[in-house]
């Protein structure tokens, strides 16, 4: 029966890779198929309807709320001009040295990446950051990669991600936070190295572009005319981080504090209600795609944790999973490309199910699976040409996602290697 489940997983990956089905739909269908293959009854205890669908769908509810709050805060950063002001100041201070601008935009992307992820994070930093970098001479591929590498620096501090791994892997938030702090230096060093090495290798480029002279500008909206956000409002992205990391406050109140801080520092009292509601509704739109995915992942996790699935998969997975620390690092580092193109190790896809199998069968401790999943997440978040942030950044810069993947993959592969080494040294 284990072989049947693995074949079903392979079919699910094929459906996602060939884009026959959206990832979320493929995961739900896969979960139901796995549950039936594992011999689960239709209703009752450990069943398809009651356990997999009913209990699985809201299993990652805390993550969904965190994603929503992150998206809300992201909308506020956009509407109040906080993100734009940060980029503008960086260009003004360092614009004549392109590498300084790239490092500054990298820092802004990292800050934004701690608040929200995926395409919204890329847009917040990249809408002004990418053309600003290109305007000072940074080549397009380097500019797109800088945004993505910056967001990846923020990922270890992205509170919704902490919540996701905590709920999905059934680990305390403290444990997730502890490992993320160990992963952060690798992400930081790789990102800075990317900017410095790529700037040195590629130098600067300037174009005589036919699109440089735009049409007559449209009348500006009031928001656009408001100008720079005040300096103290620029601290907004740090507020949730300081509360969650420094004061060990829970994730949802930390994010809410960030929302309130952004509001109070940028908005006159008479406009607060309208802005709060407008940005919250905007946040729902941004969060719709990831929330859908988390519903599907919750369902898949519930399916692979069914006793029948665990019993069927345990001997197979045990046979191919390296127990030796060196082999663990070697094998899982070589498997890094499998998290690209919605592959089977993508933690926001089937990879979550595989992580669930590894924990449920007791092959690795949950903390080791955490190390593995978060290491892969650093790769997926930057180099996967099918992830929304990579597609958006590349296309906005005027290059292909594959070009960005080729340029960034060596750096994020090194980050994954670092994360896996730490995992093997501390968790196995």
């Amino acid at each position, binding site marked *: 029966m284990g072989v049947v489940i693995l074949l079903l997983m392979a079919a699910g990956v094929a459906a996602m890779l060939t884009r026959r089905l959206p990832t979320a739909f493929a995961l739900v269908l896969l979960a139901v198929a796995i549950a039936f293959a594992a011999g689960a009854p239709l209703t009752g205890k450990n069943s398809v309807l009651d356990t997999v669908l009913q209990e699985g769908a809201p299993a990652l509810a805390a993550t969904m709320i965190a994603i929503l709050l992150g998206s809300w805060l992201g909308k506020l950063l956009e509407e109040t001009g906080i993100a*734009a002001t940060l*980029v*503008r*100041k960086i*260009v*003004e*201070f*360092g*614009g*004549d040295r392109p590498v300084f601008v790239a490092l500054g935009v990298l820092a802004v992307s990292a800050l934004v990446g701690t608040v929200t992820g995926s395409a919204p994070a890329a847009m917040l930093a990249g*809408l*002004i950051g990418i*053309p*600003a970098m290109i*305007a*000072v*001479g940074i*080549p397009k591929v380097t500019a797109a990669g800088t945004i993505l590498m910056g967001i990846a620096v923020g990922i270890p501090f992205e509170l919704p991600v902490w919540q996701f791994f905590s709920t999905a892997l059934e680990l305390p938030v403290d444990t997730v936070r502890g490992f993320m702090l160990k992963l952060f230096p690798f992400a930081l060093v790789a990102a800075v190295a990317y900017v410095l090495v790529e700037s*040195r*290798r*590629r*130098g*600067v*480029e*300037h*174009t*005589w*572009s*036919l*699109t*440089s*002279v*735009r*049409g*007559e*500008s449209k009348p*500006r909206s009031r928001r*656009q*005319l*408001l*100008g720079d956000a005040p300096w103290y409002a620029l601290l907004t992205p740090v507020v949730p981080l300081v509360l969650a990391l420094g004061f060990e406050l829970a994730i949802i109140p930390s994010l809410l504090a960030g929302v309130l801080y952004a509001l109070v520092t940028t908005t006159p009292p008479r406009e607060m209600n309208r802005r709060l509601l407008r940005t919250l509704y905007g946040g729902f739109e941004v969060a719709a795609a990831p929330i859908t995915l988390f519903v599907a992942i919750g369902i898949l996790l519930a399916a692979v944790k069914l006793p029948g699935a665990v019993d069927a998969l345990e001997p197979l997975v045990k046979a191919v999973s390296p127990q030796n620390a060196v082999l663990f690092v070697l094998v899982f580092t070589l498997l890094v490309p499998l998290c690209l193109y919605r592959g089977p190790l993508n933690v926001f896809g089937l990879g979550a199910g595989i992580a669930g199998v590894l924990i449920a069968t007791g092959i690795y401790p949950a903390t080791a699976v955490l190390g593995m999943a978060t290491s892969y997440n650093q790769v997926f978040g930057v180099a996967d040409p099918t992830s929304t942030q990579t597609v958006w950044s590349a296309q906005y810069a005027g290059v292909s996602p594959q070009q960005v993947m080729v340029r960034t993959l060596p750096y994020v592969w090194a980050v994954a290697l670092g994360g896996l080494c730490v995992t093997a040294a501390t968790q196995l």
Partner: protein
Amino acid sequence: MSGDHGLSLGHDPDLDHDHDLDLAVRLLAGTPTHEGRDPLLLRRWAEAAEEFGRRMTPDPAPVRVVERDGGLAAGLLARYRSRPPVVEVYVDTVDRAERLITQRGWRHWFPEGSVLAAALAHEQAHAWLHHAHVRAEFKRALGHTALRLGRRRLYAHVAGADELAAHAYARAACGLGRSPLLLTEALAAACSESEK
């Protein structure tokens, strides 16, 4: 608007100058980081950048020139890359520009072969603007303050201004009657029309 300018044989130099400056202001206004900036401030920066570009005297450093196709599809006329130093000239765009100049009756502003010469001069200016002492002078000329501590001022970078300086240098070096931005705008319009 550009078409009207081209067709009027008895053109007014002041009007031409104003139109060139308008194009420069529009380039700055369309450059990220200038959203919501006062148009008068942009106009002042555009004038300063063009003045700086006109007076530039770049070293005639040897740069490899490569001719390429596909410029019209990519929306490019030329590209400068610093590592290794190379200027790529998109010959299809240059040919289209030359034909457009003839069609619009702009030959007195842009003599035969001047587009290629302007492209090379433009990219040469960009290379020159990357020298530290030139950058410092350019920022002082623009006069945009990033930070002021007592009598000390830290000048800010103005995104897009180097493009204006490069165009102004190309115009001066090649003896063009109008800003290369006029040609850029007309080319963009012609390309978008032919796509329709």
